[in-house]
């Protein structure tokens, strides 16, 4: 085991930002634990108070076991097929009457990928101020936009933490100033986003890394300000009866890099991530009509080759109370279109169909199963996914996720990367 470098701890994050973050972590940790133990005796009588605020500690520790069906196909990949790793995410919160301080550090230790998947992040370190007609979030935080299940087109504020999972649902904390106004005409949000976060990629020795390793030490920026370019975004959302509508515009460093073939300092072939300045308009709509959810997400992006349009849409239909029982069965169908051309990052969702089923047992253990596949209309390449989760006890939770890559051409990116993940979490 080699010591974790700063780079591995927080890839792509401005080092000063990270050091400052780390210092804050240390101060908050020391402060809270000290004060916490000092006031521990008072806990029976009510919440622990710090600086006039109610203190709360929660979070989880998880053990993850990732196993691969096949031996690795790419040179330099670690050949263990079974990969245990450890995740820690405590959550510290201070609640004042209408203000809140949140601190959520994250650390993932994966001995099979100490340069990529082993990493830390500050998921949240922010102050939230809430008033009747407006609120604001200052600091590092996370925001989600969108309605579609199998692809997240519109969601752009936070960078994808790709080393966690290739589904793109794990995100890095993003420094932001976000202000929102609420009225009968909907919610308007404005974002100023200083400090770009680079996408995380598995290292050369890791599984699921793709055809060439990504040289995350040498990104290419379109902007001369590089990762210090200040990005901005606007968001409007509202509900019109059965319709929930969101519209957004983003200008700044695109979160999705183009991978440029290059060579690293040792003369080995690598991909260098290239981050362009883009403008992206987004629209997300959901119609909730009885047991049908109809969904659409669309974006128009300029700044990466020719301007293009992408769209994902479909439905989710639920049979509630199967056979007069407690179970719900949901059927999902989504289609993905993408109009991007050369100069834009490659996507797997160019002309694909996602079909899936979700079964919720609605039992005490909150058991849920989700199965589905994404088929490329052109190549017939298919990605099959199966997810299951349930509570084991009131503090332990288990989840399984399996991903099979079928019909992949010999030598295609994830041909030999079919895998399953078991995650056991202890919440506190």
């Amino acid at each position, binding site marked *: 085991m080699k010591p974790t470098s700063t780079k591995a701890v927080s890839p792509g994050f401005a080092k000063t930002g990270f050091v400052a973050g780390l210092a804050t972590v240390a101060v908050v940790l020391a402060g809270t634990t000290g004060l916490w133990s000092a006031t521990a005796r008072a806990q029976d009588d009510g919440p622990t108070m710090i600086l006039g605020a109610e203190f709360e500690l929660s979070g989880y520790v998880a053990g993850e076991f990732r196993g691969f069906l096949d031996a690795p196909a790419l040179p330099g990949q670690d050949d263990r097929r079974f990969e245990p790793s450890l995740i820690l995410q405590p959550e510290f919160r201070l609640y004042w009457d209408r203000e809140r301080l949140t601190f959520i550090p994250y650390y993932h230790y994966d001995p099979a990928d100490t340069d990529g998947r082993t990493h830390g992040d500050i998921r949240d370190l922010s102050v939230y101020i809430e008033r009747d007609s407006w609120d604001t979030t200052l600091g590092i935080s996370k925001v*989600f936009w969108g309605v579609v299940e199998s692809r997240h087109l519109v969601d752009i504020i936070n960078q994808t933490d790709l080393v966690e999972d290739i589904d793109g649902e794990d995100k890095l904390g993003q420094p932001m100033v976000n202000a929102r106004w609420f009225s009968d005409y909907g919610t308007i949000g404005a974002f100023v986003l200083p400090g770009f976060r680079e996408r995380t990629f598995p290292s050369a020795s890791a599984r699921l890394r793709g055809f060439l390793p990504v040289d995350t030490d040498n990104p290419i920026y379109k902007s001369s300000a590089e990762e210090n370019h200040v990005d901005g975004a606007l968001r409007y959302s509202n509900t019109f009866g059965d319709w929930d509508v969101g519209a957004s515009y983003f200008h700044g460093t695109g979160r999705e890099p183009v991978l440029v073939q290059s060579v690293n300092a040792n003369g080995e072939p690598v991909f260098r991530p290239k981050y362009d300045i883009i403008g992206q308009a987004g629209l997300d709509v959901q119609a909730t009509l009885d047991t049908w959810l109809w969904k659409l997400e669309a974006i128009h992006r300029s700044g990466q080759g020719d301007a293009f349009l992408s769209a994902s849409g479909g439905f989710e239909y639920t049979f509630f109370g199967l056979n007069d029982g407690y179970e719900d069965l949901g059927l999902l169908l989504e289609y993905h279109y993408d109009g991007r051309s050369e100069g834009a990052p490659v996507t797997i969702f160019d002309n694909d169909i996602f079909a899936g089923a979700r079964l919720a047992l609605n039992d005490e253990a909150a058991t849920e199963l989700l199965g589905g596949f994404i088929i490329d209309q052109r190549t017939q390449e298919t990605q099959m996914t199966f997810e299951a989760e349930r509570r084991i006890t009131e503090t332990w939770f288990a989840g399984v996720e399996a991903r099979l890559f079928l019909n992949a051409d010999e030598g295609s990116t994830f041909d030999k990367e079919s895998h399953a993940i078991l995650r056991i979490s202890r919440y506190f």
Partner: protein
Amino acid sequence: MTMRSFLNGLSLSLVMTAVMAGSAALTAKALAETPEKKGLAIAKEIDRRDLGFQNSSTVLTMTLKNKQGETSTRELRTDTLEVADPEVGDKTLTVFDHPRDIKGTAFLSFTKILDPDDQWLYLPALKRVKRISSANKSGPFVGSEFAYEDLTSFEVNKYTFVWLRDEACGEMQCFVVERRPLYEKSGYTRQVSWIDQEEYRILKTEFYDRRDSLLKTLTSTEWTQYLDQYWRAHNLEMVNHQTGKETILKFSPYKFQEGINEANFNKSRLARIR
């Protein structure tokens, strides 16, 4: 307001001012020529006595017991906002604190009179707010013996009522009233409630399933009157006779007309709710 909603209506409990009680009972009787009219008059009186509470909040512990006596618990907070417009239902906001894997999960519901309710769910792991279908009326709420329809609005126009008889209930006298849902997708053919004649509190309800067999019994106890008007039960026990399972709700004292932020009843706020 003709509506009462989630967890507030859950008590189906709501009762009314002492000042009005005597005369109201007389009025109900005087108008009641048929069992149907008498049943409806009682329901309207229950509803009328809960008007004007404006807003309330409470914390509750839900204990789930199976046949073997094994238990698990959930802790949740719920805020209710009465909407003055009688054509619109109340708004409720529910946030989970326990078990920890669903901590921070928030549920926002806008009850409607005739249309399906508007409901949003916030999932903290993904930071995602999702509009959900409110068609799952007969489904169990977080694995408990309470169905969603037991927890959402008691609204006079959603049922037909029949007064069955008057009957002693403990030391009190009760109306026994049957109601049948008019809305679709209910898990019940009918419910039979015992309502005390003094305060119009629903003390007990029996639920009959789609085959008209007795499915569950809800007993509401530990009543407190707030603001000299609004009665709330602080202990609700739902027993499922078919499975032997049981769910007990224990409510902390309610807060009325204090500490509710109306702005929080907004789907955009769910992701930042405490």
